[in-house]
């Protein structure tokens, strides 16, 4: 009986030890970043290993929005500085509350077809974390398919108001 308890104790100790090393491994990727190790920003479609750009967009008549995907949850708070033809614009950034791995920065629009140098600087210490060069050809990309448009054209043109979904669904 004593031997059995020792075995159980040993198994639990081994599990705890393994858990410790696994957790330490995760934490080992320190929350502090290396200032001398400046990452290159790419589009997320090309690489999402490090900070990457999800998309560029339009914010109002003359504003621009840049959405970033963070490489890890403990990435430092930052702001973006975009330079075009020597003019520097600061883009304050906000984390998406419902999806904290997404951060978007808003600021002045940049002329299309011209190169844009983006630097990412940590709020704390103004340290350069990442940088990349982009050329924006367009800020608005339509996403609907032509087949969808055809469905629209074929459908009825009168809409009826429907109530905001409430307690009726999901079905009980």
């Amino acid at each position, binding site marked *: 009986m004593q031997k059995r308890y020792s075995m159980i104790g040993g198994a639990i100790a081994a599990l705890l030890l393994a858990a410790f090393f696994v957790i330490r491994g995760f934490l080992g990727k320190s929350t502090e970043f290396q200032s001398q190790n400046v990452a290159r920003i790419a589009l997320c479609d090309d690489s999402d290993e490090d900070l990457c750009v999800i998309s560029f967009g339009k914010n109002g008549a003359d504003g621009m*929005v840049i959405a970033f995907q963070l490489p890890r949850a403990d990435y430092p708070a930052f702001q973006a500085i975009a330079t075009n033809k020597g003019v520097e614009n600061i883009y304050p950034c906000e984390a998406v509350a419902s999806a904290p791995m997404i951060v978007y920065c808003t600021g002045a629009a940049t002329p299309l077809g011209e190169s844009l140098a983006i630097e990412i600087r940590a709020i704390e210490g103004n340290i350069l974390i990442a940088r990349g060069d982009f050329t924006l050809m367009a800020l608005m990309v339509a996403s609907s398919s032509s087949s969808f448009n055809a469905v629209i054209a074929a459908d009825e043109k009168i809409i009826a108001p*429907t109530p905001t*979904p409430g307690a009726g*669904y999901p079905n*009980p």
Partner: protein
Amino acid sequence: MNNDLFANSLYVIRQNWGLVLFLLAFIFWGTLLVFAFLKKTAPRQFSDSELIALALGGWPLPALLVSLLIIFLRIVLPYTPALILALAVALAGAGWAIRVVWRKITFAFLPPVLFFLVFVFLRLGFAAETILPSYFDSAEHYRIIQVILDSQRGINFAWPTNAYYHLGYHFIIAAINLITRAAVGQTMLLFGQIVLAAIPMPLWFLIHRATESKTAAIFGVILAAFGWFMPAHAVNWGKYPALLSLLLIQFTLGVLALKHRGLLVLSAIVSIFIHTRAAILFGACGAAWIASDLWMRQPSMRRVMLAALTLAMLATLTLYIGGNPILDPILKPYWIWITLLTGLLAGSVSPSFPRLTFFPVAVMLFMLIGLFIPATSNLTLLDRPLVEITLFLPLAFLGGLGATRLPKFAVIALAVVIVAHAALTYDFSPSDCCQLVTRDDATALDWMGRHLPADARVGISSANLNFDAYGRPMLAAGVDAGIWVAPLTGRLSVPLPDSADFTSQPTRDLLCGQQVTYIYIGSKAQSFDPNVFETIQTWYDVIFSLPNAKIIQVINCNVQ
């Protein structure tokens, strides 16, 4: 398919290790409590592997009770004292449980726990690419959870829905979020995957009780986990309460074997509080159990005839459902060789387990019949998704029974083939059908929450969906990320038909008449066409635009 499964799971664990550890600790806390209670009250013939497997289905019971306590304490006390008091209760419970099992537990408890942890690892990868939980159901769950979370010390506490609605799942997630302060969507996602991993475990108990074969029990668990693409696919529909209730439904059936009346009643009530239709499923099981008892009392010739009649009714109903375009999807997960194998195995052991093979068949029959029985003017007793999600349970039970017919090596070989089939055929990643929110949508919705006026009314795309046997539509279900406008931004959303023509004067009049001040455009096939808004710049102004998400302001309503 599934090439990135391990990498995705590791990624999810790395990014959310704190939340994952907390969720596992929470679930193991509940499991330990239930295990200790069972260990203390169950007769001695129940092994630790059986009891822990059953407890892995029963943990939502203490989890919900402590969650209700946390929510209640949060209403009457400030945050820190409420948390300390709840933690003290949880620790006291854990202390009692450890004292009960101390020096009585054997190594037999480990295999079900290890199976569960492996399933957790495999299921977590689903969350790697998911921004918010899937489909429009999740948005409503999120909204209800948010209402519970927003209740500040009783002053603003309000029942989160206008009518009766099961809230057990929502209270659990809200309590977890009160403690962890994690993003609600992420908690829903990860908790859902862990629940999914636990669902096959109580079958271990049920099959082992019936067969006294560990091999059969494990085979049943493998069947339930990987045999069909249900129940796993249900996370794509956001059917989290239904999935959570499946755990307690199995647990309740297991408690029947323990003959513990108090626990049975409590478990049944909590199951129904988590998902109302659990009551119907209990009814189907009860009716099937009575039918099987009556059947057993018949002379052998009549038994054969009645069994044939039952199978004929099941086959007829299956064929009828197969011909019904609305109900047909129920059968889709089950039209595969694994179902045939299960049927053959069950048939081969029916002489050894006559009642236990008749019972699941009768349960399936009653579940299918439940699809056609009206409960209210617009609901049937059971709906298509729930039956589709649940049919795997009686089938896996039958398969587990049938495994006793085979030599051990054949069962192992079959189990390996079933796992390989799942790895090659079923997608462990989110389905394209139901991912309404892209990263652009999440960005646009967050921007909306920060910049739109509080009284903004936002038009979103919607369509009528059909779920029941009579084709009665569910009105105005959200079809893109617009469904998340209300839960994430607090702005009122106004569902508009996905086919609305925004260039027409009647539509324009209706928008202005309804005081719709903004329109949200996502990137799904049924989203509004963003291009039409560019054509009439005197009516609409694009105020925020990303490739997959747009916010349009409706302007000049006062100008004739």
